[in-house]
Structures are given as C-alpha cells and as structure tokens.
C-alpha cells in the first residue's frame, strides 16, 4: 500500500471510521426514504426498541454477544494476515459438536461438568473447521478466502444432512434435534441476577455474554501481551521478517485459524446452550458474516469490536422493532445496512482519507506554522 497520506491517530482510528459509518447510514437513510418511510421515524423506533427499555436492551446485548464472538474471530485471523470468511461455517460446525456432547453424554452429567464440556466441544469443533482451511493454505497453497467460503457451504450441507437424518428424533417432522437435557442449559442473566436479589426482565441474554467479555479480555492479552500473539501479529504484518526471526509462518496460520474458529464456535454456546436448548437449522443466521462488518468497523481491535458489536446489536434488535412498527418495512434492511458498512468502512475506507489529509494539513498548518506528519 502506498502510505502517502499519514493522518494523526485520532483521525485515523476515530474520526475516519465514524465518518465512513455516517456515509453508510446516510445511504441507508436514503433507501428508507426511497421506500416511502421517514428515516427519522425509523431511527427513533430503532433506538427506542433496542435501548429504550430493559427487555429491548436484553435482546440487543444478546445479539451483540454473537457479534463479539464472530468479530473477534475475524479480527484474530486478520492479525495473522488471514481473511477468514468462514466464521459462519465454523459456528455451524461448532453447533454440531456442542449438540453431540449434549445429546450423547449430557443426560448423565451435572451442569457444572457438562457446561464447560459443551463450551470446550464447541471451541474444538469450531477450531477444527478453521484449522483445515488453515492447513490447506499453509501446506497446500490453496487460498483461505475461497476455502473458507467452500467450508461454509460444506458445514451447511452437513448440518442439513444430520438434521434431517440421524439427529432428528423418530416421528418428528420439524428439522431440529431432540431437546438437550436440562443440565445443558446455560443460566439466563435474569436467573443469575435473581439469585443475587436483582430483578431483570426476561430476555435471551445468558451467561454466554460473560464468556464474550472474557473472550474480549483474552484476545487483548493474547494479541498484545503473549508471545504466541506477538508471533501471530509478526507473521501477519511481515511474514518474511517473521520467518527470519525464527517464527514459523505455517504454524502461525494454524494458530490464527484455530483460535478464530474456536471464537466463532462460541456463537453456538450462546444460541444453542443459552437459548434454543436444541440444534436448529441455520442457527448462526448470518452472525458469521456480520462478524466481518464488526471487525472492519472495530478496526480489528477488541475495544472497537465491542463498540461495533453493540452497534450491530442495536441494528438487529431495533430492526425487528422497526419492521414491526412500520408497514412494508422489512428486517432485511439490517443486512443492507451491514453491507453498506462493509462497503464504506471496509472496501472504501480510504476513499475519504485524502480529503481528511487536506483539511487536516490546512487547519494544522495554519495553527502551528509547519505541517506535522
């Protein structure tokens, strides 16, 4: 990349992403106006429905939990120089692992043994679905983007096959597994709070959100405080130099993709163990792709990812409310907004940079007399 334009950090990390977000939202507002609704009204309903009451907030945080996991998944791979489009498939495959554990050994185990086992099996299966494309990239030279796309479809086909054949209880017509035993259910946050004497309205928000917070902290520690994370970032930013410094880029591809897949797999914990209590078809519901938008918006940093995940939580929960309130307004507007954010904050992120550089140079050149880099 040409680094002709150098902007101060607060513009590069703060202002520019916000500006790009605003452009994406402005285009989305244009679409809302085009279909004959008032963008202002839609925005009001969106904010009120997602942040205005405790129940809405609960749903917002529940969605955001998924997006923290998939956002982190995309970001960790990104730090290793890998673009993982496969979070969707990794979460799907993790769901299969979690379901197998819950149905095979779940009934005989108490919750305090089973729940960690479920988290572990989701992580291992998610990691596995990331490791295979990782291996194929590092040792066989196939491109990670294409392979992870293919692996999304493979995971989807596999889960359809398993759900209509071996996993479907005899005599059942609906495409879902048998219900998990009670011990496989993660406690809801409302239940946890009740134990401590607080009262929260019921929502799908569950203990998986605590795992999400832990995952955020872990990724911060891993990437910037641990030796393994340093090696991953080194390989991601300068593979040849990293090789020269004694790191093995091939192994780092496995580290990046394995961790990425495991993080994506946590979506299965939130959805299946936290809410559904059984394996359902397409439970990931696009969260893996939203992770790409979250990671791009959050500049691949856990703090940014948390903020972006909350933003998308607001969009998802608020979008449901808007679709409910405004006639002829479809939930797919959220997918559109997501696409616009990926477009403007991702693919076109540097389009406005020269403009900012010009304005910045003018303003600061005048203030300090000399241009600062």
């Amino acid at each position, binding site marked *: *990349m*040409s680094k002709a334009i150098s902007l101060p950090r607060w513009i590069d990390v703060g202002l520019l992403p916000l500006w790009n977000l605003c452009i994406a939202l402005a285009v989305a507002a244009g*679409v809302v106006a*085009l*279909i*004959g609704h008032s963008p202002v009204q839609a925005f009001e309903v969106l904010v009120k429905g997602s942040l205005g009451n405790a129940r809405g907030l609960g749903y917002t945080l529940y969605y955001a939990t998924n997006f923290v996991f998939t956002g982190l998944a995309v970001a960790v791979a990104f730090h290793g120089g890998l*673009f993982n*489009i496969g979070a969707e498939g990794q979460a799907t495959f993790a769901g299969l692992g979690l379901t197998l554990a819950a149905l095979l050994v779940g009934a005989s185990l108490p919750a305090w043994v089973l729940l960690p086992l479920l988290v572990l099996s989701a992580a291992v299966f998610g990691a596995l679905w990331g490791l295979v494309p990782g291996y*194929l990239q590092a040792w*066989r*030279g*196939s*491109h990670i*983007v*294409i*392979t992870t*796309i*293919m*692996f999304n*479809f*493979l995971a989807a*086909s*596999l889960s*359809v*096959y398993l759900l209509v*054949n071996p996993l479907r209880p005899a005599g059942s017509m609906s495409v879902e597994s048998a219900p998990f035993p009670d011990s496989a259910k993660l406690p809801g946050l409302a239940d946890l709070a009740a134990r401590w004497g607080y009262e929260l309205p019921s929502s799908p928000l569950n203990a998986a959100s605590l795992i999400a917070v832990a995952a955020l902290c872990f990724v911060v520690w891993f990437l910037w405080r641990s030796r393994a994370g340093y090696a991953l970032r080194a390989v991601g930013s300068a593979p040849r130099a990293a090789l020269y410094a004694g790191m093995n880029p091939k192994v780092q591809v496995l580290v990046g993709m394995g961790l990425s897949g495991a993080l994506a797999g946590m979506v299965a914990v939130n959805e299946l163990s936290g809410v559904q209590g059984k394996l359902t078809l397409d439970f990931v519901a696009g969260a893996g*792709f939203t992770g*790409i*938008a979250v990671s*791009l918006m959050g500049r691949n940093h856990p703090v940014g990812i948390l903020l972006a995940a909350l933003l998308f939580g607001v969009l998802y929960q608020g979008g449901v409310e808007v679709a409910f309130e405004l006639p*002829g*307004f*479809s939930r*797919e*507007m*959220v*997918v*559109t*907004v*997501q*696409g*616009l954010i*990926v*477009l403007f904050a*991702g*693919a*076109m*992120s*540097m*389009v406005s940079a020269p403009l900012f550089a010009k304005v910045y140079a003018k303003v600061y050149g005048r203030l300090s007399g000399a241009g600062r880099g």
Partner: protein
Amino acid sequence: MGVFRELGVDDFVQLGSILASTLRLTTPLLLVALAGLLAERSGVVDLGLEGKMLAAAFAAGAITAATQNTFLGLLGAVGVAAALALVHGFACVTHRGDQVISGVALNMVAAGLTVVLGIAWFKTGGQTPTLPIELRITALAPGLTEPLQAAQAHGAFLGGFLGHGLLSHNALVYAAFVAVGLVWFLLERTRLGLRIRAVGENPAMVDAAGLSVSRLRYTALLLGAVLCGLAGAYLAMAQSANFSPNMTAGRGYIALAAMIFGRWRPLPTLGACLLFGLLDATAIRMQGVALPGVGEVPVQLVQALPYLLTVILLAGFIGQAVAPKALAKPYVKER
C-alpha cells in the same frame, strides 16, 4: 450404439430430461463463471458475482413487471449488474480497496436491498409479480419442451433424447454456450484480450507500455457485468416467472468454484459448469435411489460435491490451479 439398442423409450425420455435440466442448470453458472473469469484474468477478485446476479434477477423481474417489456427487463438487469461492477471498480481499482471485502459488501447489499425494495414495492413477501408467458424468455422450439410429447412426435432417440435434451431451450441457454466461445476468442485472439490477460499477470508492464491499467480492469468488470445481468434475467424471466428472495441460492459461489475448477480458462470452466450442472440435475433424481455397491447417496452430499471438489482441487490433490499472478493486488502506479 450397442448400448442404445437396449434402451427403451422411457430410458431415452429419462436421459433426455436429465440432459435438458443439466443444460438449464448449467446456464446461469456458466454465464456468471465467465463473468468471474474475465474479472479475475484482469487481476480483480470477483466475490460479488452472487450479489450482481441476485440484483440483476430482481431488476429483471421488477422492471419487466413494471414496464411490461421483456427487452427493458433484460436491459435493466444488465444495467444494475454494471452499476454494481462500477462500485466494485471504484472501491478496488480506483481507490485500491480490498477486493474481497468489496465483493462481500456487494453480496450483502444485494441480498438485503432486493428484499427491502421487493417487499416495499410489490407487497408480496419480496416476490415480484408473476410474469405472463408472453413476457418471459421461453423455449425457441415449444414443441419439444415436454419429453414424452417430443418422443411421440419424433421418436425416442431423436425427439425424447436429442430433441428435448438439446433443442428445447430458450435463447439465453444457447447464448451462454456461445459466450464461452466469445470469451475464449476475446482472451486468446484479440488485442484487448491479450491486454486484459497481461494486466492480470503483470500490470506494471502494461502500464509501461502506455496503457491504462484501470481502464482495462474496468472494461473486464463491465464485460462480466453484462454476463451477470443475463444470468440474473435468466433466473427471473426464463427459469422462473418472477424474482423471489435469495433466488440465486449460492450459485454465484458455485460459479466461482467452477471458474477455479476450470483454472481460469473458458473451455475447462465450461466443463466444470457442466459437471456441476449435472450434479445439480441428478441430485434431486437420486433421492431415495440406491446405487449398486454404494447404497443410497444423501442428496446433501451430491449438492456439496462442487464445493468439496473445489477444495480438493485447490489443495493440489488433482492437478494444480494457478491463479493470475496479479490477482487481488491493487495496482499502484510508480511515480
């Protein structure tokens, strides 16, 4: 011909209908795979094929229904696909944004916007109005569209197999196969094609020769957009009678797989598309059928085979797929 002598009328009709549906299912794959081939040979990754095809299908369905004019529908489909290709070019060629991210974005925008607009404008759950038969793109030889009738009229082999199998299609099916030849001729026998290939392998050299890298890449993207537009129109105006949400159903990605499977070359890509089309055509027929020695093959496995084969090919287990050298690399002009 010994084998054929043993076959009865029913077998010919069966084979004819498998052949016919293979060609019908191959058509959109082929058009889009060729579009991807043009873009990628010029050095631009085209993950947005799915989105371009979906948006084009919506435009075809919506515009034909609104204007009651087939030609305007086709034109609109191509126009919308071209508009998305220009966005892709603006992001990745002009501003050197990430080509993969841009493609992913286009797919998301198309998936969302087609449903949002469809529900708002037509109020039927995202579907466009059903087109009457006069407005659709229909078979050139209507007498052959029913395999049994064709077999009765012209004999089992001539009518049921060849007639229904090969000659019962609409113009877009034949156009897709002609496009293979055209793309091959463009890339291998014309000056523009040579330049497109060169810009995908060594853009600096093309630049040094005084040609515009950007213009060549935009040209390749726009030529591809025409094919994506036709593919979308095929889905909404020929294969179905209207647009329905997510009607591409991952075909853009299968086409991408076919293009890689065909190693970025027109004729092998045709082969891959035919193979994937055949798999698709047989998947439904194989449900519940036990193959000798293998037993019943799950339909999901047959449907997943294109993806599986592509993974295996890319991993170098069946030959090696070598991408254009400058693929995914934005070109920075030396100053």
